[in-house]
């Protein structure tokens, strides 16, 4: 068995004294692990940092085997992000989340493309926390747990959708009389999650993280006895301190 693909490094664990087991998120083969011989050497260590894009060739005798990767650098950007505290924490959080949430060896091209855009955005724009919220919402959708933000679950209207039901993940028009009894129990829906045209105001990113975090925990992580990575919590603290939520 062998294939070649582009991948983003998600995690690296030492194996023996000179090798590592690398987890990549690949475009065509999903989250895939493999052994990299000599991965702890001086040449490979800078390449095998979370967030870097690599060209990977995987080879194994049988499909079920762990297999071995031959890795070549493609776009090394982790080093450039390390000076930015929020971006480092963000990189930490998204790579860990992808490892925890995505099943192994299952193609998720949209998640890969989103992650690629998000990491590129970390170096290019201050708005990347909003991109991260969108990526998390996309992750939910790609895993089959997408939020239904098209129409109100109570009235069926498509307008003035301001909240999301924490149980069903469906949008709710918070101003509707039918919602009056529940509105304080609903999660806030930031406008930027509904369409690309919506701008960002203070509190939107925090509301977005609360929304995606709630459903990631409830639908994806808790059933597998997992929790949101601590790095995501620390990222939110940092963004709050910097006034970027």
């Amino acid at each position, binding site marked *: 068995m062998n294939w070649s693909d582009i991948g983003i490094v998600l*995690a690296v664990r030492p194996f023996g*004294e000179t090798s590592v087991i690398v987890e990549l998120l690949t475009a065509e083969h999903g989250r895939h692990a493999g052994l990299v011989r000599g991965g702890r050497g001086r*040449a490979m*260590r*800078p*390449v095998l*940092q*979370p*967030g870097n894009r690599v060209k990977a060739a995987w080879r194994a005798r049988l499909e079920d085997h762990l297999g071995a990767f031959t890795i070549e*650098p493609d*776009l*090394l*950007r*982790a*080093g*450039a*992000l*390390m*000076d930015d*505290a929020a971006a*480092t*924490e963000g*990189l*930490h*959080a998204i*790579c*860990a989340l992808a*490892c*925890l949430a995505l099943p192994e060896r299952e193609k998720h091209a949209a998640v890969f493309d989103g992650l690629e855009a998000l990491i590129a955005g970390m170096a290019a724009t201050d708005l990347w926390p909003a991109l991260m919220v969108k990526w998390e919402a996309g992750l939910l959708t790609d895993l089959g747990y997408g939020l239904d933000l098209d129409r109100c679950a109570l009235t069926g209207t498509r307008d003035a959708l301001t909240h999301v039901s924490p149980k069903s993940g469906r949008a709710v028009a918070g101003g509707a009389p039918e919602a009056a009894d529940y509105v304080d129990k609903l999660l806030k829906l930031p406008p930027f999650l509904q369409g690309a045209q919506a701008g960002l105001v203070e509190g939107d990113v925090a509301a977005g993280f609360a929304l995606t975090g709630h459903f990631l925990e409830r639908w994806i992580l808790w059933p597998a006895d997992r929790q949101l*990575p*601590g*790095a*995501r919590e*620390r990222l939110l603290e*940092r963004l709050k*301190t910097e006034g970027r939520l």
Partner: protein
Amino acid sequence: MSDVAGPEIQRLIELLAKLPGLGPRSARRVALQLIKKRDVLMTPLADALTRAAEAIKTCSECGNLDVNDPCKICTAPGRDAGLICVVEDVGDLWALERAHAFSGRYHILGGVLSALDGVRPDDLNIAKLIERANREETREVILALNATVDGAATSHFLSDRLKDAGVEISSIARGVPVGGELDYLDDGTLAAALKSRRPS
């Protein structure tokens, strides 16, 4: 192997094979060498191991390993108590000491934050570091963690936590290593080297 050697020899080989750099085959060679040189090597080694296991303590001040608590570095009168160099592991302390480039004191963190391995701030020796940074004599804390994403995340986290201590916080530089050729350096290292250039 158990057919040709008794359980004591087998146990010795199994334990030796757990050491870094030794597999089962090289562990057998080491065991054989030890057995052949029983008086000059095996007995003194066993004696040294027993003594070390009994005497080695973790320094309550910095987390270093030594036979005294506080350790030799923390009690050395010639060392600058105002400088604290934070490292991930004892191996990093030894590496810096080999370089003879630092005359202050150290603080061993015991790891770095890792989302996947579940290493959180409470798992690291951070509370003691903050206490030391708040002492009157401390002037500067140098963060000398590995230049990895985990190491950088930990450095940023520590910078935040140490802000209120009123000490200078610095990080070791990243850039071109001695003997390094630009052509072979990765993009991140080159970018960091250019960013931290200095007038010459």
